[in-house]
């Protein structure tokens, strides 16, 4: 089981879960359940010391009021790396967290030793618009997020046919999460127009992992990241949607482990 700490990072109170043995791995979570310690993290912890901070505004972490744009989050993670001695560590990011990881590696190449991007947001392709996440019902969102509609989280989302059907103990934290994502991702919509041109700056050996059935950021985005990050490889996971940490934790852990080893 991981250890839970609350760190002061530049005045923000940040919840960090950490556990495992081996080289450091900084995991930047998505806007979904991987803010908590899941099967994926347990598997990674067998080979790495995994650090799982909650972004400002997520879980128990505070400081969202000081986040207006992606650069604020990138600087926050530079501060967090310094606070935890993680400068130059491997960084794994999924979806929203993948976007942060890509920005960090592009703006501060020396801070990221190795980089794994999992169905990362951050880019925009006119021919494959990123799906709407702010104006949909939970069942519509589940359809786009999951390959397996029977996955427990997909099934839970399907049980909420209207927003008012969501119980308060789920609705409140989820509203906080969506606000935190909207603060940096409302407009431009879930991407940074400057990122594509900056990815040439990334020095870290990079693995891009994508769910073949991703309905939020389709596989074309994985191919785009592969093409833009110098030397990056792309691994496509079958029978998997936008969130490999939830749908294919075993495959994802193995791919990350083999790449970082």
């Amino acid at each position, binding site marked *: 089981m991981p250890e839970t700490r609350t760190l002061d990072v530049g005045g923000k109170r940040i919840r960090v879960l950490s556990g495992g043995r081996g080289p450091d791995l900084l995991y930047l979570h998505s806007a979904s359940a991987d803010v908590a310690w899941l099967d994926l993290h347990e598997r990674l912890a067998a080979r790495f010391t995994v650090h799982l901070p909650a972004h400002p505004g997520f879980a128990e972490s505070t400081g969202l009021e000081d986040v*207006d744009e992606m650069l604020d989050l990138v600087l926050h993670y530079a501060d967090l790396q310094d606070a935890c001695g993680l400068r130059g560590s491997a960084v794994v990011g999924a979806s929203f967290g993948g976007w942060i990881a890509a920005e960090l590696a592009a703006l501060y190449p020396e801070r990221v030793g190795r980089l794994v991007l999992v169905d990362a947001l951050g880019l925009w392709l006119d021919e494959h618009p990123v799906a709407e996440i*702010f*104006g949909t019902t939970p069942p519509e969102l589940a359809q786009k997020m999951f390959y397996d509609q029977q996955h427990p989280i997909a099934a839970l989302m399907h049980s909420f046919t209207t927003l*008012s059907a969501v119980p308060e103990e789920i609705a409140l934290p989820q509203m*906080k999460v969506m606000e935190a994502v*909207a*603060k940096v991702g409302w*407009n431009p919509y879930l991407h940074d127009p400057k990122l594509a041109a900056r990815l040439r700056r990334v020095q870290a050996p990079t693995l891009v992992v994508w769910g073949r059935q991703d309905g939020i950021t389709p596989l074309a985005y994985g191919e785009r990241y592969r093409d833009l990050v110098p030397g990056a490889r792309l691994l496509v996971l079958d029978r998997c949607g936008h969130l490999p940490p939830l749908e294919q934790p075993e495959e994802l852990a193995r791919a990350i482990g083999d790449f970082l080893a």
Partner: protein
Amino acid sequence: MQVFMFHLMPWAYLPESYEGPAWVTCSNRHYDGVRGGALYNRYLDELVRAEALGFDGVCVNEHHANAYGTMPSPNLIASILARETRRVKIAVVGNALPLYNPPVRVAEEFAMIDCISGGRLIAGLVVGGGPEYYSNGVNPAEARGRFAEAVDLIMRCWTEPGPFVHMGRYYKLRYVNPWPTPIQTPHPPIWIPGAGSLETMEYVARRRWSYMGIPYFHKRVFKRNFDFFREACAKEGYEARPEQMGWLVPVYVAPTDEQARREFEPHLWHFAHKLLPGINISPPGYTSPRSALKTMSAFGDFMLNVTTWEQIEDGAYAIVGSPATVRQKLAELAGWLGVGNLLVLLQLATLPADLTQRNQELFAREVMPHLRGVAAGAVAHGAPAS
């Protein structure tokens, strides 16, 4: 009691076969400029007629990308009314401040309307509905912050000689010096519409401005909100004046109760089933979680979820009937709610020109004179009006 005629200027031609939201994604291929032009002119005639019929004022408001209300710029309509009327107050309820950058634009346009109308403007300031944030790109997580800063900036525009410097979190302006400034001093009356957001009511109470309850809720929701507003004023150390509260409600008067229902009901359901869907979309960060939960809990009392005429009558979602019926219900409810402003929607959805005109005339002749006598502020603390 002051009585205002409110107009939404709805799109009257959404096909009965249309299913889906009337907001944000309702395709504008359903719009037609020729028909739209005729509607604008008809609706303007209806508002101008309100002056001749003796109303105290007229109200218009701002919505974008929807079939429910086709006034993306209420200021354009208000500026026409400023010329076409001589006496009535013109309430723009309101401008969605975060959608204007810089919001000095609102201070300028409102001042123009106030000057042209000879000081008849009521300035409505509003955060804007949830759908507007999808249609305009402004970040809803910044909505409350931008609104608060914009209000302060507009108040400075109207009360402090320019030029001055404004360096805020959202707006940075080296020279603020709007020409013109309003006729009314220190500034036009401020109305803030709200759907029950606690922050909004506390904010309006603190400023001693006026709070307009957004309609289509069960009467108990209005009651709860106005009670909360009165408490918020009491916490600020004063007793709320009835003129600080306004109740907006659809009204239809016909010679008999039976005729009124027969004529009005199809248009009411078109409104509830075709034009309201989508109005309730709530973007992230737009309200505090505290208010969002409260709004969600009131959602069962929202007209979208109403299916029977009995519910319409019981909840006072609309006041429909003969002059005697409407007179009695409005007087009773306005007294119970304790409001000093009654804002009536006399045209709704597809209600045609002839029925709207008769509704206006019957209301003005048979109902309105009796409401003037309703003791403003005669707040009943007893059981709700039946």
